[in-house]
């Protein structure tokens, strides 16, 4: 499995995901510069967090027009794995690879804190290999993480098992009181209908290094890697 991490001008979690995949999980990783179009044989493309192009217009709105994105879209359409984290999730929604949109947090403020999320989709490999009913402590850091889609879309997401994570309490219970940003039905991440493109606002790569005293995010990657290898 060869990972490719896209670097846009303004990406700032690229090094973190490279560190996690390469040094913690022992995977082969290469960076993909936004001006290029070659995915260099990557099997699994990650769009990292950050503020691509400054995010001055709307988060992810400019990045989706970068040369590399045409290749990423083609890769996804062929069934290749693509994962967007935080700003990466926003970019995938802007690019039409994932349904819905990320609006301003209902608090109108940037929020960075630990949250708990619980796996939902039994058919998407990013969540299916995790412990259902459990709360995984994964931090968020965003100003626009309020997941929105119209009623019909939400229904089809639920019907097709496309919701991968919801915000929950430490004990795994999903309650409105722990919804950090106003996301519809506490949705923290979704995948496409083909289950090969995933996006989530929380940062699992920030919970992967034992030195940070939280490795719930590492379990998330390990769960997926196990399925890919199998």
């Amino acid at each position, binding site marked *: 499995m060869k990972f490719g991490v896209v670097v846009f*001008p*303004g990406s*700032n*979690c690229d*090094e*973190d995901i490279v*560190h*996690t995949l390469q040094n913690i999980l022992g995977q082969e990783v290469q960076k993909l510069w936004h001006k290029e179009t070659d995915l260099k044989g990557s099997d699994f493309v990650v769009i990292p*967090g*950050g*503020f691509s*192009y*400054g*995010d*001055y217009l709307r988060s992810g709105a400019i990045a989706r027009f970068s040369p590399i994105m045409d290749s990423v879209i083609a890769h996804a359409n062929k069934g290749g794995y693509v994962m967007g984290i935080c700003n990466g999730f926003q970019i995938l929604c802007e690019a039409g690879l994932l349904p819905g949109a990320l609006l301003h947090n209902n608090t109108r*403020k*940037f*929020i*960075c*804190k*630990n949250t708990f999320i619980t796996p939902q989709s039994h058919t998407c490999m990013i969540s299916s290999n995790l412990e259902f009913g459990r709360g995984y402590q994964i*931090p968020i*850091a965003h*100003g626009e993480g309020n997941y929105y889609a119209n009623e019909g879309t939400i229904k089809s997401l639920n019907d097709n098992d496309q919701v991968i994570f919801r915000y929950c309490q430490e004990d795994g219970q999903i309650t409105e009181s722990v919804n950090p940003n106003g996301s519809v039905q506490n949705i923290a991440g979704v995948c496409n209908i083909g289950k090969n493109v995933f996006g989530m606002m929380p*940062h699992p*790569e*920030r919970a*992967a*290094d034992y*030195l*940070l*005293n*939280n490795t719930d995010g590492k379990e998330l990657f390990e769960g997926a890697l196990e399925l890919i290898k199998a």
Partner: protein
Amino acid sequence: MATSTEQLATLDQAKEMGLQEAEFNDIIKVLGRTPNFTEMCIYSVMWSEHCSYKNSINLLKTLPKDGPHMLVKAGEENAGLVDIGEGLGCAFKIESHNHPSAIEPYQGAATGVGGINRDIFTMGARPIAQLNSLRFGKLDDDKTKWLLEGVVKGIGDYGNAFGVPVVAGEVFFDETYQVNPLVNAMSVGIVKTKNVISAKAKGPGNAVYIVGSATGKDGIQGASFASKDISADSADDLPSVQVGDPFQEKLLLEASMELAETDAVVGMQDMGAAGITCSTSEMSAGGGVGMDIQLDKVPLRQADMKPFEILMSESQERMLVVVQKGKEQIVEDIFEKWDLHAVQIGVVTEGPMLRIYMHGEKVVEVPADSLVLGGGAPVYTRESKEPAYYAEGQKFTLDQIAEPSDLVVVARQLLANPNICSKRWVWEQYDTMVGTNNMSTNKPADAAIVNIKGSNKALAMTVDCNARYVYNDPEKGTEIAVAEAARNIVCAGGEPSAVTNCLNFGNPYNPEVYWQFEGAIKGMGKACEALKTPVTGGNVSFYNQTAGEDGGALPVFPTPTIGMIGILAHQNLQATLDFKYKGDLIFLLGTARNDVNSSEYLHSIHGILNSPAPYFDMKEELTLQGCVKELIKNNLVNAIHDVSDGGLYITLCEMGMPRGLGFDIVTDSEIREDAFLFGESQSRIVVSVTEDYEDEFIDTVVEHGVEITLLGHVTRGKLVVDEKHFGFIDDAKAIYDNVIGEAMAHKSE
């Protein structure tokens, strides 16, 4: 050298730009002629307080600068540099952005963050952590809320996009800062020592580049603005406030990191205060060379900018780079990759003259050295006078206040005090985790611990200053600020290494302010000497005051913010402050005293400001810190937290909150209960210890000669003092966590 476009300057203009008559005459002496208007502008900013340190440098020179770990001496480069071994250095510095933040809190604070980070990465260091120290007026005031909201959003929006975590900080509220808030930002970076980039220009014939953003009319004369009193008219200075673009800064960072890996760069300096003027003159003077600069080559944001406007502009996200002749292409390619301007605007010359041309016409010719600190910039020692309030305050004694009948109520009031409560509302708006090196997110401690990836080491860092202590006793108060910073580092498992300071004071021409400044520097010097933490650099911000109702000037509390760096020889030395297990024994290390001096308790509960500084003795402090280092090394304590603002009771609550544990303690019958619980006498640390290790723990403490008191034990959540029920930790936490958020939610529109 008057030309058709360049009128000779007049004394009136000089005064208007903030220079004194004697300084104007000095300029004429240096040049052997009257300066033209543009040259006058240059001198006015370079000789402003902000750039020249003219009223502080004499005293700053007395601070200890050398230490075993210093790679660069104070003031020699953009920031201090400490050797952390394994071929790595730590560059760090703190800087103020008080005046801009007072009138435009969002941009003022944002550009403060931008400026301090550029100081770090122009040295070739990648910033890995940020800290900040903020001071505002009273929290229940609407103006304060506006300022707080803007400053926090400014710091957050800039730093979050830039991608460097905020790992620690302090926020303090007092009416002294009502008009003039303090915004101090610190950045810490890591550099391969072989890649350190100098701030000096060298080698005549080498190319001078301006890189980064285009130059506009923003921030013109910002340095002069920072060098005068904030007043009701300050909003007229709005164009002096710059506008920040963190995206450009991020690109500039990445380009600089790539530059540092090449051998194409001779020197590089950030354009902060006084933009092109300051960077060209300081780089030239630093390297003993001159420069010829063509202003018409500078990329501009708007047409028809005059030479003085281009020279004075403080447009953000720009840097001056001196490039090795013949290696220009390497530099241009890197900036091309990051879509940034990189334009050659001049060459290094034999010196000593700085010559500036516009469309072929020479508009400035001045000796570079005559402009800068350590060169021709003026140096003054000002008149100093002990203020009357000082002697008055020394007379205070504990028996002048009655002990409140119900300390449970007092305890609750202190938990809800804005200076004591959690600053969660503030730091949740900052990205505290980007970079995946903040080891404190899930392990709270007195100082932030930041991992150095690729090594077994970590950095500890903190910012500290209790300005009320400093106001009441500048010398001792500042000693305490340094000692507390070091104590925080030690309690987190680190070895204190070096200091950067941000000296926020009133108008130095006011003898009472200068007296405060003298005392603070003296105390800082003493403490840094004793703790072996040299001062590597920092920043002085005078003129933090406003006109009082009677027209007289009211300086802010003297606020010498201490930023301190420490090193953890191994990451596993990290210590934490949270109680771990019910039943653990709770001990106090250090001596309890009948002392409520300068405490938050004395001020907020009894309404008394003037009193001596809290008890402090450096010898006791050193003994205590030595003891703590050994306790942590031998893994004998489960939790450790120093006693500071709010006193012992607050310390215990803070230790209990993370895991919802409480405490059951007894006080000392020799000490008044309010002083025991809420006094802030220094050099005290609370620890929790597993019963199994009690003997070994006590032996170690006794060997070090530190006084030790068994206070009680950790409970499941109940708070008990002398068998009296003080409530439950969850209720205490609910109060403590939400004070600022609730205040901010109740803003009258």
